[in-house]
C-alpha cells in the first residue's frame, strides 16, 4: 500500500517535471533566433520559469528516492521511454514532419502550443494549490504566477496574429490545426492521474475541461480563428509512448552530461 502510494506520487511529480523540462528545452531553442529581441527575451524567460519548475519537482522526487539521486540524474540519465511528458510538448517548432526532418522554426507553432499548454496549467496549478502534498502545493502557488504570465504572453499574440494580416492568420490557424489533436492527451485517463486525484495529491483533469474550453473558445473568437476538431490520434506521451521527436531532443540535451558520468558542474 505504502509502496503504491509512493509510486503514483513519484510518477505524478515526474509527469509534471518532465512536461516542464521538455517544453523549457524546446522554447530555449529560440534564444538568438526570435522574431524580435523582445520575443527572444520572453521565450528565454518562459524557459527559465519552466526549468525552475522542473528543478523543484525533480528535487522532490530525488528526496523521496534518496540513494544519490539528484534533479540531474532524473533529467539527464533517464531514457526517452522513461519520460512522462505530454507528446504535445516534445514536438519541434514547426508543422507535422518526421522526426529527422530539419527545417525552419515557426513561431506560430510555438505560440499556439504555449497557449494550449499554459491555459491548462493555469487551471491545474490553481487546483494543485490545494494538493494534499504541501510541497507540491507550494510549487503550484509559485508556478501559477509564472504560468499566468506565459498564458498572457501567448494569448496576446494569439489575438494580434489571429487578427493581424492574412498571412499571420493563416499561420496561426495552421498551427492550431496541427497541434489541437495533441490536446486530447490532456483529458485521457491515466492510472497515475486517477490515483493522484483520488488521493488528493493531484487534480481530476476532467474538472478543468469546461474552463479550458471556455478560455480557448473565447480567445479564438477574439482572435478570429476557427477551433479545429481535436479528433485524430490520441497520443500517450504521459504513459511513456512518445513521438519520434523526443529521442532527438534528449540526445542533444543529455549528450554532454552523459559523456561525463559522475562529473559535478
Amino acid at each position, binding site marked *: 500500500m505504502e509502496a503504491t502510494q509512493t509510486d503514483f506520487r513519484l510518477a505524478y511529480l515526474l509527469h509534471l517535471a518532465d512536461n516542464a523540462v521538455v517544453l523549457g528545452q524546446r522554447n530555449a531553442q529560440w*534564444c*538568438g533566433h526570435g*522574431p524580435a529581441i523582445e520575443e527572444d*527575451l520572453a521565450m528565454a524567460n518562459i524557459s527559465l520559469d519552466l526549468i525552475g519548475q522542473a528543478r523543484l519537482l525533480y528535487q522532490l522526487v530525488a528526496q523521496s528516492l534518496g540513494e544519490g539521486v539528484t534533479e540531474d540524474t532524473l533529467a539527464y540519465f533517464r531514457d526517452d521511454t522513461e519520460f512522462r511528458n505530454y507528446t504535445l510538448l516534445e514536438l519541434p517548432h514547426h508543422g507535422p514532419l518526421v522526426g529527422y526532418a530539419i527545417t525552419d522554426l515557426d513561431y506560430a507553432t510555438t505560440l499556439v502550443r504555449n497557449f494550449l499548454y499554459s491555459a491548462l496549467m493555469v487551471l491545474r496549478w490553481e487546483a494543485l494549490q490545494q494538493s494534499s502534498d504541501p510541497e507540491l502545493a507550494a510549487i503550484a502557488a509559485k508556478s501559477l504566477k509564472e504560468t499566468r504570465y506565459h498564458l498572457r504572453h501567448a494569448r496576446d499574440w494569439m489575438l494580434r496574429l489571429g487578427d493581424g494580416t492574412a*498571412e499571420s492568420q493563416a499561420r496561426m490557424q495552421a498551427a492550431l490545426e496541427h497541434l489541437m489533436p495533441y490536446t486530447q492527451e490532456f483529458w485521457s485517463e491515466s492510472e497515475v492521474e486517477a490515483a493522484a486525484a483520488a488521493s488528493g495529491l493531484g487534480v481530476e483533469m476532467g474538472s478543468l475541461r469546461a474552463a479550458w474550453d471556455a478560455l480557448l473558445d473565447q480567445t479564438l473568437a477574439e482572435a478570429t480563428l476557427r477551433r479545429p476538431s481535436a479528433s485524430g490520434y490520441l497520443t500517450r506521451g504521459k504513459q511513456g509512448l512518445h513521438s519520434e521527436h523526443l529521442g532527438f531532443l534528449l540526445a542533444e*540535451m543529455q549528450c554532454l552530461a552523459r559523456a*561525463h558520468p559522475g*562529473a*559535478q558542474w
Partner: protein
Amino acid sequence: AERLQRFQERIDADGRIEPQDWMPEAYRRTLVRQISQHAHSEIVGMLPEGNWISRAPSLKRKAILIAKVQDEGGHGQYLYSAAETLGAERADLIDALHSGRAKYSSIFNYPTLNWADVGVIGWLVDGAAISNQIPLCRCSYGPYARAMIRICKEESFHQRQGYEALLVMMRGTPAQRHMVQDSVNRWWWKCLAMFGPPDADSLHSEQSMRWGIKRISNDELRQKFIDATVPQAQVLGITLPDPELKWNPERGHYDHGPIDWDEFWSTVNGKGPCNQQRLATRVKAHQNGQWLRDAALAHARKQQQRALKEAA
C-alpha cells in the same frame, strides 16, 4: 561657438550632457556609433553562448546560462534605447548591422567549442568588457552613463558566475580540467586584443578622451585586466598561454608577450572563423520574423481604427 564652449566646460567639469541639451553633431554621431555598436555586440553576443543552452550539463547551469543570455539581450535593448535618445531609429541601427555597415565586438566572431567556453566567456570576455565599460559609467552622455552602470553591475555578476563555474570544473574530473585549459588557451589572446590596438595606433581615442566618452587608454586598461587576471588564473590552477607572462617588480605590473594584431585585424575585417555565420544568423532571424512584426503592426492599426470608430 558659445554653445560649444559651454558644452566643453560642462564636460570638463565632469557634468552630464542630457538628450535635450545642445551637442556638436560629431559628438552625437560618435556616440550613436559607439552605443549602437555596443548594442549590436550584446545581441550578436547572445549567439556564442546560446550555442550551449541546449547541451548545458546540469539544470542549474542551463538556467544560469539562459538567464545570462537573456541579460545580454536586455542590455542590447536598453542600449538601443539610449541610442534612440540621440535621435537614431532602432530600425536603421539594426539595418546598419545587418548590411555590414555597423560593427560589433569582434570577440563574438570566435566559436564556442566546449562547455568550458561558457565559463571562460564569463570570466575573461565579460571581465575584459567590464574593464572597458567601467570608465563609461562616468561617460559625459547621461543616458549612456546610466545604462552602463546597470550593465556593469549585471556583467560583474556574470563574471563571478563564470569564474565559479570554472572553479567547480577545475575541482572535477581530468576531462573537465582539460576543457577549461583548452578553452583558456583559445580565448586568452583574443581577450587581450579586446582592449583595442596599442595607444600609438588608436584612431578615435584622442577626440573621445576630450569629449569625456573615453577616459582611460587601451594599454592602461589592458594592463589592469592582466594584473587582475593572473592571480585568478593561479587560484583556478590553469596556465595562461603566454610564456612571457611574468611579474615585473620594477613596473609593478605583469609583462606579457606580443599580441597577434594581424589575426585581430583579419577578424575585424571579416575573416574570422564565424563572422559570416553570426551576421547571417541575425539577418535570418530578422527576416523570418518579418511576418510577425508586420502582423503586430497591422493589428495595432486595426485596434486604433476601432477605437476611433467607437469614439466617433
